[in-house]
């Protein structure tokens, strides 16, 4: 067993001698005997590298990954192709193994990546201010709630039922802490019910939350929903966006959004069974000094050379402690690197082309599935990369998923309450894959 240490017996003797102690045990003399563990930890014995590899490989083999089936599951994370250059760059020692860039003179690479990433997120969202990443999508949305609470102190949040359930649950958890009530507004025809939305808003509303496209794939009229919030005034308007959809969707900065958050995984990050990925967080200028997390800024060194530093740190926990805008410290810098490299790789035209391709294929898939007897759309709203279909009553969705899985097709996420399937399309799902899905689904329902 290797502990990745290098202290030989000779080293140990020399070191102990320098310390003037007889044994390593003496260094632990400060720990009272009664608190000492008087037995070895009950863990499997250490193993050589090749055996650990074999064990981890065996565990991996008991998962059905996107490599093993034709998958149409999305629901917040999507099986986009991750270009090879991202693997290479994310595994470079210089990006993989440093800590947070506390010493800017020797961290210019990472700091400039943050600056470029912030620029890319600002461009994507049409919002002037972006931080260097937060944990992931749902906690990004909950953190926006905390920003609102600190900004206006109002006691109530109004949330569209089209927001990802994990985001709503996370917001509720955070709000239990800092104290805010979370009111959910139902959907009508697949999108946030505008009348119920308006009725839920008042001068006690601290923030509103929508998602675009929403959890069921529908494109929301974010501008109209935010206009309703503006009638109340003083409300922080938060929206979660799918960054891939932003290739063709009107950006949140043009829809009255104050704080835009989202799950960054679709941007060049692996599925990894849910993480690590990153959350993005962008806002209008007014919230610059209320942002959570790290922000890189451009500056000059004493010789006048261009450089980058962590900036506006007086917002942060290590300076402001209990008055900080957030407790976040370690975030997702390496994953955000994957994000900005992916956006550069897609490029200005590529992001649009990808969006248009998904739009066409998703439409094709919705038509193909709805042509199956008994299958109908859960809603008829515009969709970009994901849609939901209701299955006939005689075909419970859980059973249908199992039957499809036997055929090597994962048909989508089961929405049991609606007996529906949430189906996601990526550029890795060709027309032939979609036709195969329709075929297998038809058999599974019959």
């Amino acid at each position, binding site marked *: 067993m290797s502990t990745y240490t290098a202290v030989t017996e000779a080293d140990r003797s020399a070191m102990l001698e320098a310390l003037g102690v007889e044994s390593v045990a003496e260094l632990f003399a400060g720990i009272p005997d009664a608190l000492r563990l008087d037995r070895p930890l009950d863990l499997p014995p250490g193993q050589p590298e090749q055996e650990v590899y074999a064990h981890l490989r065996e565990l991996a083999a008991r998962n059905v990954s996107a490599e093993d089936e034709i998958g149409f599951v999305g629901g917040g994370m999507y099986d986009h192709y991750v270009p090879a250059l991202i693997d290479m760059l994310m595994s470079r020692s210089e990006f993989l193994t440093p800590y947070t860039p506390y010493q800017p003179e020797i961290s210019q690479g990472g700091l400039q990546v943050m600056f470029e990433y912030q620029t890319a997120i600002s461009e994507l969202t049409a919002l002037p201010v972006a931080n260097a990443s937060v944990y992931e999508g749902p906690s990004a949305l909950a953190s926006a709630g905390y920003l609102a609470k600190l900004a206006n102190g109002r006691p109530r949040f109004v949330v569209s039922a089209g927001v990802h359930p994990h985001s709503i649950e996370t917001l509720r958890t955070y709000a239990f802490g800092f104290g805010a009530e979370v009111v959910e507004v139902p959907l009508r025809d697949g999108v946030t019910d505008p009348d119920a939305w308006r009725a839920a808003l008042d001068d006690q509303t601290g923030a509103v939350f929508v998602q675009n496209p929403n959890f069921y794939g529908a494109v929301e009229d974010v501008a109209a929903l935010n206009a309703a919030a503006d009638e109340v005034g003083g409300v922080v308007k938060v929206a979660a966006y799918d960054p891939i959809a932003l290739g063709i969707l009107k950006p949140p900065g043009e829809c009255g959004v104050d704080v835009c958050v989202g799950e960054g995984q679709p941007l060049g990050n692996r599925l990894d069974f849910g993480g690590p990925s990153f959350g993005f967080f962008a806002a209008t200028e007014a919230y610059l000094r209320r942002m959570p997390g790290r922000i890189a800024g451009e500056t000059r060194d004493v010789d006048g050379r261009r450089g980058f530093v962590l900036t506006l740190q007086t917002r942060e926990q*290590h300076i402001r402690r209990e008055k900080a805008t957030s407790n976040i410290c370690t975030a997702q810098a390496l994953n955000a690197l994957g994000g900005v490299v992916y956006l550069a790789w897609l490029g200005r035209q590529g992001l649009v082309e990808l969006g248009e391709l998904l739009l066409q294929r998703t439409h094709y898939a919705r038509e193909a599935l709805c042509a199956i007897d008994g299958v109908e759309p859960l809603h008829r709203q515009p969709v970009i990369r994901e849609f939901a279909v209701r299955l006939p009553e005689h075909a419970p969705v859980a059973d249908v998923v199992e039957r499809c899985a036997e055929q090597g097709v994962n048909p989508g996420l089961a929405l049991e309450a609606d007996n529906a399937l949430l189906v996601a399309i990526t550029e890795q799902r060709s027309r032939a894959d979609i036709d195969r899905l329709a075929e297998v689904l038809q058999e599974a329902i019959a």
Partner: protein
Amino acid sequence: MSDTMVERTAPVAQAETKTIFEKGAPGRRAFVAPELDVPEVDRATLLPAAYRRSEPARLPEISEPEIVRHYVNLSKRNFDLDSGFYPLGSCTMKHNPRLHERVAGLAGHARLHPLQHPKRAQGALELMWNLERALSEVSGLPHVSLQPSAGSHGELAGVLLSKAYHEDRGETRTKVLTPDTAHGTNPATVTMAGMEVVKVGTNADGGVDLDDLRAKADTDVACLMLTNPNTLGVFDANIAEIAEIVHGVGATLYYDGANLNAIMGITRPGDMGFDIVHFNLHKSFTQPHGGGGPGSGPIAVSERMEPYLMTPRITRDDAGAFDLSFDHPKSIGRLRGFQGNYGTFVRSYAYIRSLGAEGLKDASETAVLNANYLLARLGEVAEHLPLAYGRICMHEFVLSGAPMRRELGLKTLDLAKRLLDFGFHPPTVYFPLLVDEALLIEPTETETKETLDAFADAIKQILAEAAEDPEIARNAPYTTPVRRLDEAGAAKRPVIRQPLG
């Protein structure tokens, strides 16, 4: 300016760095879109113009070779653990084994969708279950949630758990005690959880001031957050008494696991009386830090805290099948999407399987040996950099640069910057706050004696040099891609994105 200084400040010829947005040219690209293989439908029918973006986002237009060269060159402007010693206190910069990257990259882990049916994710759930059991054993607490994304996220979980626990008993408690040595995340977390921070003082030995604790521990206190060994590198031997005081007023005891690397297999937070512990998988369990994440902050809790743990939880039935369970009515709910940073679980699990019980204990013992050896070596400069508390340390120690500042005119910051020229990452500086000109040093177990000696020699050399000419260190560094940066200017006139016309 002295001759030495002129020599050391010789200009380094370097072109000014450009961002990716300043490179490339219109029309260049890397991505090739798959062919449109379905019948094309009018775009405006599919997505009405009112919802459409009018102008493409101004992303770079650049070829793959340019992207690769750009980021590879940027990477070379970073110092990293794989290149050199990184004794950043409280950060546990231990070696990141490459095996972990290989196994985390296996398609069965890396391309597993988080909403895959549990039946078809048995390997992942088993891995998480095994990791939970291992962390439970290391901490001495029975129940584990892997969900939090980082240490501070684990702290938030812990404080919310305490809040839920008290509320469930019909009590509203509004205060959380933290020592003045605490990490900044502790007080920030308390405010986020809607409670008030009450600071507890430190005694002459570097531990919690028991009289101050007794005076402040009342029935408004929900929790005491503690790091043990603390950020001074001191194991608080009064921990049993501290636990008694805290539990005596019905409050919970929270363990900030940032310093767990000192005690694995030696003593356990659960046995010390802690109710909640967070682990930093990116510290003790060697998830690479990634230049600021990803991390992972699982928590382990005692029996009485279990009902409030986050959902979903992992279950194992009698037949050995794993599942996710959601039905826990007293749970505080979710803290994030999906099941947590699974990729970090794969790495830390591989680490625990490589080391086993004996190896983890050896890691902690060697970490403490290395820290004490380095402390002893730096005893040679104790005149200027004395140990702030105690005589020996655990896995890290705090020196005070106050005499150095007074007598040599060198601030801790200057020493740190001069270390850059010697090829070392400096220790954590100006933390903990209660030590004047603090220098928090954590060498970890994976460093050789030769490296520790070289680091101690470098510090000696810098101090000797400063005795001759303090200006050298005051103007350091000289050999880095850039020199001291105007941080005040950056904050005053923030430029946080590339202006694009």
